[in-house]
Every structure is written in structure tokens, then in C-alpha cells.
């Protein structure tokens, strides 16, 4: 009964339960989840289910936050990081976001993983004015949709990635005839549409496209179809399992030897090892992070710090894993944002995440920095092409700044927001 009365009182006072309104210089702003000694943030990842391989991102994040906490925290505040599982289901993601915001009373959502879950949580974050920082998906709309300012992406968008491939082809194979294999979801469509627009005005042509569903058993049929098109480039926009199948079919076909462009989502070293290094020589991809196992990383102090921290705080993680590096990098960027806040409030966090000037991070490739500002909601927009040689990725050419080359990414006119 007491709680009932309390609930009614809160309703009448027009205040949502649990929000802490600041006074003084930051009057009126919301400071839920922050104290002088701590800041509480929550992340939602697919710890179980079909996409559970991406749970490694959370390990990298945990490693970096533990590392920061052990060296005194951010401005004296320890970061408390809560990890929740959505099993890659949007409805569960919303449920967990509610739980984090209303029950655990987090300051901000740091990362949701995957476009469907992020899109679902985004509306909730917007309605409750909770920052949703550096979401782990490359969909373009996090950057183009100005109506949802509480959400921001991190990694290069799929359109940026597509632009790098278009740039690479225009320079190395200007007459390329491209066949595209793509996953029939937002990821595949985003990258394919971005590629289409990026090759506009060049003599690179798309001659065939084939999609697959994530529920399909294999993509062999699609690749056989694409081979029939006689293209000399295969743009492979798939997730690791299907990429492995496509690479194997491509290698087994004597009559068709296209340049295989493997999108960044699939370019995991463990997958290439399963396919067999002999079968994937010469495959190209684009990346933006350092490879902790590469020889040039051996005496990089930043990589040393990373390896030591991962071994110490998350011994179960694979330090060479891309996902772990990614989590670490995003977490470091988040700490930079926390450091840039003018007030300990959600509004200040939002302002800080949209005002980053060429921030350098330990595990980004040299020449790639994080920048946001008015009219630029894409933190990373530069990529580096790499070719698979021997047993690892070898950089090809220099870093390509897609904003400088192609201009700012605009919303696709065909898909509102």
C-alpha cells in the first residue's frame, strides 16, 4: 500500500521514479547513475543464441574498464559496467534496456550489439533521454538520423566500408565487373546500397547480385549463380559462417577466379584458418584496428598494454580476437567522452559524445582517429585496405578517409531514417 501511495505521489508530481535532477551550475540536468566516486553504465550483448560469437566485444570492454578503474578511474569515478544478454532478440534487448535504466538506474547505455536490437532500444533511449553510446553496429542510420540524438555509432558505417571498396576498385581495377553476395537484412542492404552509390560515375559495374537469408543452410547455390555472371570481382557481404562457405566454393571452382572482397564483419582470422590459409590467399578486406598478433605490433607499447590488461582482467578471452580489440577501443573512446563532460549529467554526456576532435585511441591503426561534431555523427570514417598473404592481413595502400574522398554520408532517399 505504501508503495502504491508512493507511486501515486510520484505520478502526480510528474516525475519519473528514480531520476536525479542536478542543481547548481548544471541545474535541471539529469544525473542518475553518477556519484562523486562512481558511474554506472550498462551494455546489452548476445551472450547466448545465434550471434553469441560477438559476446567477445563485452570482454574487451570489461578489460578496458577494469584497467581504467585500477589506475584511479575517470576523474575519480570508478566505472561500474553491467552486461546483459538479449540473445540477439530485439524484444529482449528492449526489456533489458528497461531493466538497466529503471531498475539498475544506469547513467547511460554503453553499447547495444546488432542493428535490430539497437534500433529497438534506440526508441526507448530516445523516449527516456538516456544516451546510447557507441553502439556496436555499422548501420548508417545512427549517423544520418538527426531525430535520435541520444544514439551514436562507433565503427566505420557499412557505407563508409563500401566506399573504401569502391575507391580501391576504381584505382586498381577501373573496369571491374562486380558480383555481390549479400545477407538479406539491414547489414547487407546498407553495404550494397552504399557500394552502388559509391561506384556511381566510375566505370566499375555491378553485374549480378544474390542474397541469402540467415536461416539458409548454405550459400553454395548463390555463389554458383554469381560465377555464371562472369564477374571478375566478388563482393562478399556476409557473416563469418557464410563467408567461409563462399570462400570454399570460390576456391573449389577452377573456372572462376575473381578478386574476393571480404567485408570486415566476416574477416575474422579464426574463420580464415578454418577455411584453410591456402584457399584464401589474395582475399582483400578493409579494417581500422591493429592486429595484436601482427609482427609490426610486437613492439607497440599500446598493444603491450592491451595484451597485458586482457590477460589479467579477462583471462578467458582470446586477446588476438578482433571483437575483443573492438570492445577495448570503443571503451577507451567512451572514457574519453566521460572525460570531456562539462557536468556529471546525461545531457553533458550527449554533448561530449558529439564533440570529439581527432581523438587518438591505442588500438586504432596509425592515421585513424575519432571525430564527431555538428553535422558529423560518424566517429570513425577512415579505413585501410588489407590483403591476406601467408597467414595474416597485410596492409595495402594508405588509410582512406571516406569523408574527404566522398563527402558526408547522407540518408538513403529510398529508406526514410
Amino acid at each position, binding site marked *: 500500500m505504501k*508503495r502504491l501511495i508512493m507511486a501515486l505521489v510520484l505520478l502526480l508530481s510528474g516525475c519519473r521514479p528514480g531520476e536525479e535532477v542536478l542543481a547548481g551550475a548544471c541545474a535541471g540536468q539529469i544525473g542518475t547513475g553518477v556519484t562523486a566516486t562512481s558511474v554506472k553504465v550498462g551494455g546489452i550483448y548476445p551472450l*547466448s543464441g545465434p550471434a553469441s560469437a560477438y559476446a567477445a566485444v563485452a570482454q574487451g570492454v570489461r578489460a578496458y574498464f577494469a584497467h581504467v578503474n585500477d589506475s584511479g578511474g575517470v576523474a575519480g569515478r570508478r566505472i561500474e559496467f553491467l552486461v546483459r544478454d538479449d540473445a540477439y532478440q*530485439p524484444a529482449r534487448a528492449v*526489456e533489458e534496456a528497461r531493466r538497466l535504466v529503471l531498475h539498475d538506474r544506469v547513467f547511460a547505455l554503453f553499447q547495444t550489439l546488432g542493428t535490430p536490437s539497437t534500433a529497438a532500444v534506440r526508441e526507448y533511449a530516445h523516449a527516456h533521454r538516456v544516451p546510447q553510446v557507441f553502439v556496436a553496429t555499422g548501420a548508417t542510420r545512427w549517423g544520418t538520423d538527426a531525430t535520435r540524438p541520444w544514439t551514436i555509432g562507433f565503427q566505420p558505417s557499412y557505407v563508409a566500408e563500401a566506399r573504401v571498396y569502391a575507391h580501391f576498385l576504381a584505382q586498381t581495377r577501373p573496369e571491374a565487373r562486380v558480383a555481390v553476395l549479400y545477407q538479406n537484412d539491414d547489414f547487407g542492404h546498407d553495404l550494397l546500397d552504399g557500394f552502388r552509390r559509391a561506384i556511381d560515375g566510375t566505370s566499375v559495374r555491378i553485374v549480378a547480385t544474390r542474397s541469402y537469408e540467415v536461416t539458409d543452410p548454405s550459400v553454395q547455390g548463390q555463389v554458383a549463380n554469381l560465377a555464371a555472371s562472369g564477374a571478375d570481382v566478388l563482393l562478399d557481404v556476409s557473416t563469418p559462417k557464410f563467408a567461409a562457405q563462399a570462400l570454399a566454393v570460390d576456391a573449389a571452382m577452377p573456372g572462376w577466379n575473381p578478386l574476393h572482397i571480404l567485408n570486415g564483419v566476416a574477416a575474422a582470422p579464426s574463420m580464415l584458418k578454418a577455411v584453410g590459409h591456402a584457399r584464401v590467399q589474395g582475399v582483400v578486406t578493409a579494417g581500422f584496428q591493429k592486429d595484436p598478433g601482427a609482427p609490426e605490433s610486437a613492439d607497440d607499447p599500446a598493444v603491450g598494454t592491451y595484451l597485458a590488461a586482457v590477460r589479467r582482467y579477462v583471462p578467458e578471452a582470446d586477446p588476438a580476437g578482433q571483437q575483443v580489440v573492438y570492445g577495448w577501443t570503443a571503451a577507451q573512446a567512451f572514457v574519453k567522452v566521460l572525460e570531456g563532460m562539462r557536468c556529471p549529467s546525461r545531457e553533458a554526456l550527449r554533448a561530449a559524445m558529439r564533440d570529439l576532435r581527432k581523438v587518438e585511441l591505442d588500438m586504432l591503426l596509425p592515421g585513424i582517429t575519432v571525430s564527431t561534431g555538428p553535422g558529423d555523427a560518424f566517429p570513425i570514417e577512415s579505413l585501410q585496405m588489407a590483403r591476406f598473404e601467408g597467414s595474416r592481413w597485410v596492409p595495402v595502400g594508405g588509410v582512406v578517409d571516406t569523408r574527404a574522398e566522398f563527402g558526408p554520408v547522407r540518408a538513403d532517399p529510398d529508406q526514410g531514417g
Partner: protein
Amino acid sequence: MNAVAAGHRRLPVGHEAGDRRPDWPWRRTSLALVASAAVVLPFTLPPYRLFQLTLVLVYTVALLGLDLVVGRSGRLSLGHGAFFGVGAYTSAVLIAQFGVPYPLTMPAAALATFGLGWAAGRPALRLRGLYLAMVTFAVAVVLPPLLKRLAGLTGGAMGLTVPAPEGLLGLDDDQWVYFLVLMVTAAAFAGMRGLAGSRPGRALTALREHPAAAETLGIRAATHMTAAFAWSAMYAGVAGALYTWTAGFVSPDSFTLALSITLLAGVVIGGLGTLAGPVLGAFAVLAVPAVAQEFDPAAPGIVSGLLLLLIVYVAPAGLAGLLRRTLWGLLRRRA
């Protein structure tokens, strides 16, 4: 449907007909308890728990419908996840693309899924055996890629976000949606209860228990089965619309064959052919993975799988039957 039964003398059912299975005691008391709990809970639960509770009610409506096919008609449907999805999308598209007020989208979803259920059931139910399972399987597999294909309407693979219904009468949004869903659930229960004792309901039971004998008595199998299936699909569709209001987001990959299988598991875990079964089943399929998750990421699959096997072997009447049995065991010992 009840109008059909009106002119006929009612046959004895239940206790009068010699059914001596122990009945649930204190019917009124427990109903009153459940009802008052349902009204008080939204004001005492933390909001995210309330959201989970709302989802349990949504699934309950879908399971009530599925039970009509599986429990009361003894047929296998693999398509209820798809009907759920069609209902959810009907509501979401009408709200997000055409600006239809959300209360109107529920009858639309009901109508669409009733029609779809009729169309799918009509050819399949003329025959016994696995045919219904086959046709519904086809519907379940084709729906997600079809939703992606119709991108102009459905938002394609990206899905659609739908603004949550705004709270009225001084209620929070969450509480308002909860009460809406609660009302629909209550109506769904009332409908199903009415059916159980009615002539079509008894015809279904007869068809399940002894189809040849039932047809000899002049019960038209295809007609009754098709009607039951269409109603059942409609329940799933209504649940889908409620899901859209609750979750505020639909995407094609939420309504795959896996959802149909989850619903099938829920209806068996809860207990076939009972009214309490769907609630218990909905609770089980939503809560068990969430709780198991706390222990180990691999645990939900193992626990859910074991639970299903355990139910089938130890308590074939489901949680509802188990509850009834333990309670009676206790009472008898005391007496």
C-alpha cells in the same frame, strides 16, 4: 458460434457425464485472488518486471489460441509464430505507415489472421494426419523473407518502430499497455471458456477422441476443424498486435519458425486442453531462459530442453496438471 448451441438440449459434460477427475477446488477464491493480484501488480512491480508480465499475458493469448488446435483438436500447427507475426505486422504497419489509431489495429489484425487461418486450414484439414503441420510449416518458413520483400510497406529487413500507446487515466505508458493487454487476455479467456462447453467445442473433443465415430454421428470434421483453426490463428494474430503495442518494434527475423516451436513448447509445458495451461506455459517459456541465463550463457538451451523432456515424461498433463495433482495429494493427506 454460441447461437448454434442455443436451440439444442445440452448434453451432460464434466461431472454429470461421469468425469471423476479431481477438479480444482476453490475456483472462485483463486479467481478473485488472481484478479486482484492482476490489478495491484502494475503499481507494485518495477517497470521492467511489469513489461515482462505484459509479455507473459501476450504469449498467454497466443497459447490459448494454439491450444485450440493442439490441445482441443489434437493437430500440430507449426505456423502460429507466423500468425503472431502477421498480427504484429498488421498492427505495426497500420500505426506506423498509415497513422491508424492503435485500438483499431487489433480488429484489423484479428480479421487478417482469421482469414489467413481459414485459407491455410481449409485445404489441409480436409485430411487427417500431418497435412496441417506441412501447410503451416510452409507459412512459417515463407513469412520472414516475404516481409523483407515487401519493404515499402513493412520497412523490410530493418523492421518498424512503433510509438508506444500513451498512458491515459493518469497511468504510466507501461501500466496503460498492461491494462489493455490484461483486458484482452480476460476476454480471450472468456471466449475460450465459452467455447469449451459449447456444441462446437464438444464436437472438437469428439473429433479428437474418435474421428470416425464422430463423423458417423454427423459431425462435419472439416468444417469444425477449419473454424477452430481460423479462431486459433486469430488468437495468435491478436496476441501479435498486443506484442507490437508492448514491444514497440517488429522485425521479420523475430517471427521465424523458432517462434512457432517456442509456442508449441509453451502449450505442452503449460498443459494441453486446460485454461490454466497457457498462462503457466507462457510464464515458463519466458522465465526459464531468463533465469537460466543468470548461471551460464549455455544454460537456457540445456534447461529448456530438459524441462520439455521432463514435462513429457513426468507430467504429461503439463504444469497445470502437475499443480492440480500435487494440491489434491496434499489435501487428501490432510483429510
